[in-house]
């Protein structure tokens, strides 16, 4: 694979996807210290929001240590070169949230829908463009759509005004060929000026390999999390990906030594548990299940004595999509009833 001289934008997820692994309890101080470390290491774009995006604060997913607005207002002013993005899931966040985030100074809004439901993003993508933001369409659980279906959804988001489209491997299920097929088809049919991105999870340890496949197929934005701190077994670890890029001659503008230090000294110490592949996060990747279900399944196992792995597998069988965390407790309660009945 010859990718020498390719320029890409890496986008850090540790302060947004990493919120899942922290049950949304990253403090303002930790947000500031990690984001300043990333900034100093040369990371050009950092996502800061509740794990489930703007307005994600809820019983359903967890109340965060601070509000989206508090995080954004604390982080943005102190960055030297890095810009900040926010995530928004239509059906959760509204254009009101988007206006608030724009007022805080974000440069990028990423509007996320399930991979077959792009048409719920019209209001938000349009609003993002009208505010002059870098506006990204983020197609989640992209493994659940064939490349042709995903392309149709990408074209919709592009037609609403998105200037970048993502194939998002929310379950960490894809293998490099799956990534290549999706990104290549998007590259072939979207406008040449529309950027493409890939967001990986490391549940099958494919984060780096999949990201390289995406770059080779035409993506120029790659999501990584410093220290790998993200949902499930985490996202593509930033420091590892940067080191690999350097070896291959892919230009990221990020300093290998500095980013490795941020991972080791600032991110790893704040983790509640080692974010790694264990039997449950492996199950996410193996069965194609939304990565942020992990801690909910673990808690249900503790509370109701049903296997987290069984719960995750059942969520996969029932084709649950991102956001349906309530169904984990519901399923655990149903399993307990069935056990008592037999």
């Amino acid at each position, binding site marked *: 694979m010859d990718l020498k001289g390719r320029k890409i934008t890496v986008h850090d997820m540790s302060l947004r996807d990493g919120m899942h692994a922290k049950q949304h309890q990253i403090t303002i101080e930790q947000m500031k210290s990690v984001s300043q470390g990333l900034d100093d290491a040369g990371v050009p774009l950092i996502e800061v929001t509740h794990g489930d995006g703007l307005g994600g604060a*809820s*019983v359903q997913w967890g109340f965060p240590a601070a509000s989206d607005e508090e995080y954004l207002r604390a982080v943005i002013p102190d960055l030297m070169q890095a810009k900040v993005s926010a995530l928004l899931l239509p059906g959760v966040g509204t254009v009101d949230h988007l206006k608030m985030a724009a007022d805080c100074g974000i440069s990028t809004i990423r509007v996320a829908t399930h991979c*077959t*439901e792009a*048409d719920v993003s019209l209001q938000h993508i349009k609003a993002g463009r009208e505010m002059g933001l870098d506006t990204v369409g983020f197609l989640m659980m992209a493994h659940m759509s064939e490349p042709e279906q995903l392309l149709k959804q990408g074209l919709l988001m592009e037609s609403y005004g998105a200037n970048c489209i993502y194939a998002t491997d929310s379950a960490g299920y894809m293998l490099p060929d799956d990534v290549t097929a999706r990104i290549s088809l998007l590259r072939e049919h979207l406008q040449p000026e529309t950027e493409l991105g890939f967001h990986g999870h490391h549940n099958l340890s494919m984060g780096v390999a999949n990201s390289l496949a995406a770059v080779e197929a035409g993506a120029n934005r790659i999501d990584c999390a410093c220290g790998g701190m993200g949902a499930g077994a985490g996202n593509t670890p930033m420091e590892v990906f940067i080191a690999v890029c350097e070896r291959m001659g892919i230009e990221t503008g990020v300093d290998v030594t500095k980013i490795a230090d941020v991972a080791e000294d600032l991110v790893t110490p704040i983790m509640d548990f080692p974010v790694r592949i264990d039997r449950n996060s492996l199950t996410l990747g193996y069965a194609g299940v939304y990565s942020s279900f992990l801690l909910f399944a673990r808690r249900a196992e503790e509370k109701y004595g049903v296997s987290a792995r069984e719960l995750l597998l059942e969520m996969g069988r029932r*084709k649950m999509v991102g*956001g349906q965390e309530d169904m984990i407790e519901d399923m655990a309660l149903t399993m307990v009833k069935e056990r008592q009945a037999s």
Partner: protein
Amino acid sequence: MNNKLKAAIIGPGNIGTDLLMKAMRSDWIEPVWMVGVEPTSEGLKRAKGFGMKTTSEGVDGMLAHVIEDDIRIAFDATSAYVHAENSRKLNELGVIMIDLTPAAIGPFCVPPINLKAHAHKLEMNVNMVTCGGQATIPMVAAVSQVQPVDYGEIVATVASQSVGPGTRMNIDEFTRTTSAGVEQVGGAKKGKAIIIINPAEPPMIMRDTIHCLTEDEPDQKAITRSVEAMVEAVQEYVPGYKLVNGPIFDGNRVSIFMEVEGLGDFLPKYSGNLDIMTAAGLRTAEMFAEEAASGGIELPVRAAA
């Protein structure tokens, strides 16, 4: 003596047609008109097949017949954009408007909670909130009737095939209107609404989760009784309204897990979200008819009638 109130349905789409099929079985409502804007619309053809009078010229096409046909109730299943004008024109002629759009000009109506009050006051325009609101607000109210609820949050998960283009293009309206309903009708001090769309095949039946945070420690027995009674009250007009799990209690959190299966009149059974709207709209009209028949309210006076 025939106590049925005569009704018009505006909007011959999926919702309007499903509503028509339910209304034809009603003891209290007699559907007479179906109003559309497309002369070639399938929905108008279907309504004609059911013996309805039809017009493809919108509400204006029916106005001249309102008095002679004694139309007393209109259901608006069009869009928020045209609802205000439809309502103004028909209210002027003394027609009670039941609004199934997100326009929300009139007060929110969730039948087991506040329908009686609206009917007693002869509200001339009532709004049916949203599908997610109809499915969940009764449960928030069931808790808040027992003790104060600081925060009510609802998560409505619906089959992709049951979400029409209107909802998709204006999904913010769903979250805003539903959370307002959770507060104003459900009785939560603060409300939040989340909608999730699931494209699984075969389509999933609508699921709704209701989380309440009570001000003080929840009275488990009283809340459980209240929830069960409310489920029965909703089942009177939506038989497929089912408590799957809960209420469960975790500190001050009360969580209730519902499933809503439709009757499958015109819309498939999985689209309980659409069914609960049409069923609640019809139930609302029936209550006005019952109140009029029992002398509880006087309908606007009409010389011709």
